[in-house]
């Protein structure tokens, strides 16, 4: 005799009910937790921006962000201006750090759309930092980061993060040994934009040469490294018309 659970009608009903139950649970949870998740994401952005300009609780080896209960206050203290860059001009824009770069990049495929390019001006110990958000593709998923430049367009600090790069390999782009190498690198050769390339070949493992536009790659993470290089070149280039006016 055929079992009750083998009947077609039962199977279809079971599938429908299961989908409804699971769907409602997930939809409910996602909506209920959204405010908390959004707040965490906002804190994270502020922490990352501050990290890139050197405002963090790092010691010798560790990566320590400003704690979430203080980050809002520190953000207003250190970030003097939030701008949007348009060609070689920049205009003030409130809460520019909340602009979704991914959405902007998608919208920019339509040539008539004026892409919003957020730029943050920070000040620490009398020195000015220009912090640029970046977003690109790694091996598995998105990678993103912030780079802080000074007026002469020398890198003062970077922060990278990723969604799903391979642990132990590409995932190490958010580690100190990789990020710290960028500090001091030049992105301009005279007036030509060069960016910073994540280079294989071990030509300069201690990273003493700061004007070779290269940092040492992570072994086994070629595609993630190439993604970082491409991201820096693509996103920094868009800010160059404006940043070059500061240099003069």
């Amino acid at each position: 005799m055929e079992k009750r659970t083998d009947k077609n009608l039962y199977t279809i009903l079971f599938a429908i009910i299961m989908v409804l139950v699971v769907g409602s649970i997930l939809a409910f949870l996602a909506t209920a937790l959204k405010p908390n998740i959004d707040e965490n994401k906002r804190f994270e952005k502020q922490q990352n921006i501050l990290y890139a300009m050197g405002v963090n609780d790092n010691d010798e080896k560790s990566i320590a962000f400003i704690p979430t209960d203080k980050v809002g206050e520190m953000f207003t203290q250190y970030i003097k201006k939030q701008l949007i860059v348009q060609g070689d001009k920049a205009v003030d824009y409130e809460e520019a750090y909340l602009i979704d770069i991914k959405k902007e990049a998608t919208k920019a495929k339509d040539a008539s759309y004026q892409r919003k390019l957020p730029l943050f001006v920070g000040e620490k110990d009398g020195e000015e930092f220009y912090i640029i958000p970046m977003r690109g593709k790694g091996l598995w998923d998105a990678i993103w980061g912030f780079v802080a430049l000074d007026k002469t367009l020398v890198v003062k600090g970077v922060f990278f993060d990723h969604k799903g790069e391979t642990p132990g390999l590409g995932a190490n782009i958010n580690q100190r040994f990789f990020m710290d190498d960028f500090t001091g690198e030049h992105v301009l050769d005279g007036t030509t934009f060069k960016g910073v390339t994540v280079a294989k070949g071990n030509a300069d493992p201690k990273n003493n040469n700061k004007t070779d536009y290269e940092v040492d790659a992570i072994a086994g993470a070629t595609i993630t490294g190439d993604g970082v290089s491409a991201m820096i070149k693509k996103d920094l280039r868009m800010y160059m018309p404006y940043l070059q006016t500061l240099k003069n």
Partner: protein
Amino acid sequence: MGLLSKKDTKLITDPLADNNPITIQVLGICSALAITAELEASIVMSIAVLFVLGVGNVVISLMRNIIPSKIRIIVQLIVVATLVIIVDLVLKAFAYELSKTLSVFVGLIITNCIIMGRFEAFALANGPWKSFLDGIGNSLGYAVILIIVGFFRELLGSGTLLGIPVLGDAIEKTGVYAFGYENNGFMLLAPMALITVGLIIWVQRSRNTELVED
């Protein structure tokens, strides 16, 4: 034996050695290759699988009499995916830092064949308590292999354990590096994980010849 009968104990201890999910059942190889370049990632993944397999096995076992056999694999998949997404959402809301560390594992857990394998082979035919023990046993067996592989890959590949340099500084040439030792970058790549798992299988089968298939 108070809490666990002899049979129950076997459910936990068997997968640790003679019925190990990775080396004997050859399940979960994909994630074992992907994330064992670092010891820390191996440990995190082991804990995550322990949780998902323990709870998932119980859920499937409770549903075992009402699941239509024609779509049982899809039902299992939905149960795993839902569990993982719930955990991910809750972590994102209340333990954001931890969730960032774990986010990369979410996809790997859902596609982990150990989980589907145990649902299909055990939970569908056994009661919740036994299924729970089976889930714990198998994820511990998985953890043992992951941690052994992660230990050797991180030590030989990067010269560190849990991110702490244990062999000296490779660039400054201190510790063993002073004698011309070099990190073996090949250890960080997936093929070496497969070879390491192969070596474990070799050791295990030469110690217990009953495991050798013809």
